[in-house]
């Protein structure tokens, strides 16, 4: 089995020192890897990134993250990444990594993603430069995630796609319909369905729902901390053969 702990939207600020660390006190015993689905910080300052690294300092399993929109607010994303990686956190941005678990290698491909909406009610790259840039950002994120997934597949037994924005509508249920275009895009799901993955994790939608599935049948989980109501959620990726043995 491969045990994946995941949480998004921890939004660490100066007033939350100690809170995240306390919630992760036993994660080393419960999982093989900890994934962070963006919005690690509240405003995206290097100082907040240092607080995040401090909160995670006692975690000994690998920690893999993508950034979220909050992590870009101070326009210091490069420095935020540098500080996080200095703290031992692997930050994915259209890239991938692998982690060895008890029964194989799990590949993680990650990207922030972006918005645009969902098929039938989505923005189109037409008209003003700002509109083209908006959808261009989503398309670029989707393309880079696709390539990262394809690249890691041959090096891994199971593959997880890690995002901040949502690839499907189901995990947004509970949010106001009017803001769906700012919460995710079907272009992300299309990219992952084309490349293949065993599980998709995202955050960003604080009032959303936990479970969904892509049109291609890949399971999607919204792990925003406000949705899961706990420090993190654990997903146990089991090979079908193992499940058969446990049933017998």
């Amino acid at each position, binding site marked *: 089995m491969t045990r994946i702990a995941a949480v998004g939207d*921890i*939004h660490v600020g100066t007033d939350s020192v100690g809170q995240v660390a*306390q*919630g992760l006190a036993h994660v080393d015993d419960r999982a093989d890897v900890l994934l962070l689905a963006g919005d690690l910080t509240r405003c995206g300052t290097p100082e907040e990134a240092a607080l995040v690294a401090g909160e995670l300092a006692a975690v000994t399993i690998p920690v893999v993250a993508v950034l979220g929109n*909050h992590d870009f*607010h101070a326009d210091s994303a490069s420095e935020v990444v540098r500080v996080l990686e200095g703290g031992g956190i692997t930050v994915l941005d259209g890239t991938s990594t692998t982690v060895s678990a008890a029964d194989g290698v799990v590949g993680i491909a990650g990207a922030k993603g972006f918005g645009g909406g969902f098929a039938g009610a989505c923005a189109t790259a037409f008209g003003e430069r700002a509109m083209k840039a908006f959808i261009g950002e989503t398309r670029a994120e989707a393309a880079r995630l696709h390539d990262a997934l394809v690249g890691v597949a041959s090096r891994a037994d199971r593959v997880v796609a890690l995002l901040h924005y949502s690839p499907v509508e189901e995990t947004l249920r509970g949010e106001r319909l009017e803001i769906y275009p700012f919460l995710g895009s079907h272009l992300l799901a299309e990219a992952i369905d084309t490349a293949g993955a065993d*599980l998709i994790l995202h955050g960003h939608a604080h009032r959303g729902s936990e479970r969904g599935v892509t049109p291609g049948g890949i399971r999607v989980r919204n792990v925003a901390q406000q949705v899961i109501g*706990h420090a993190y959620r654990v997903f146990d990726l089991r090979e*079908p053969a193992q499940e058969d043995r446990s049933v017998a």
Partner: protein
Amino acid sequence: MSTDAPLPPAYLIGHIQDALAADDRSRELGVDVTLTGPDPRVVLTGTVSTEAQRRAIGEVVAEVAPGYDVVNELAVVSTDEGGGVEELP
């Protein structure tokens, strides 16, 4: 319209949400803001990261919406480790 006239509710909600995003004390996008009457009240719901942030958001809203009672129903996110394990065959 006089600059002293109260903002129509639809505009006031926008101003409150802008202030919650911009103010260093709050920096929060995930607050639902509802205005109710007949006594002017602004009701805040949603989930934020810390108790200090929850209180600060109430302060920011009180400054942006003078004359309104602030009903702060925000919850603070739970960070206990009791989340279950989901098996995904």
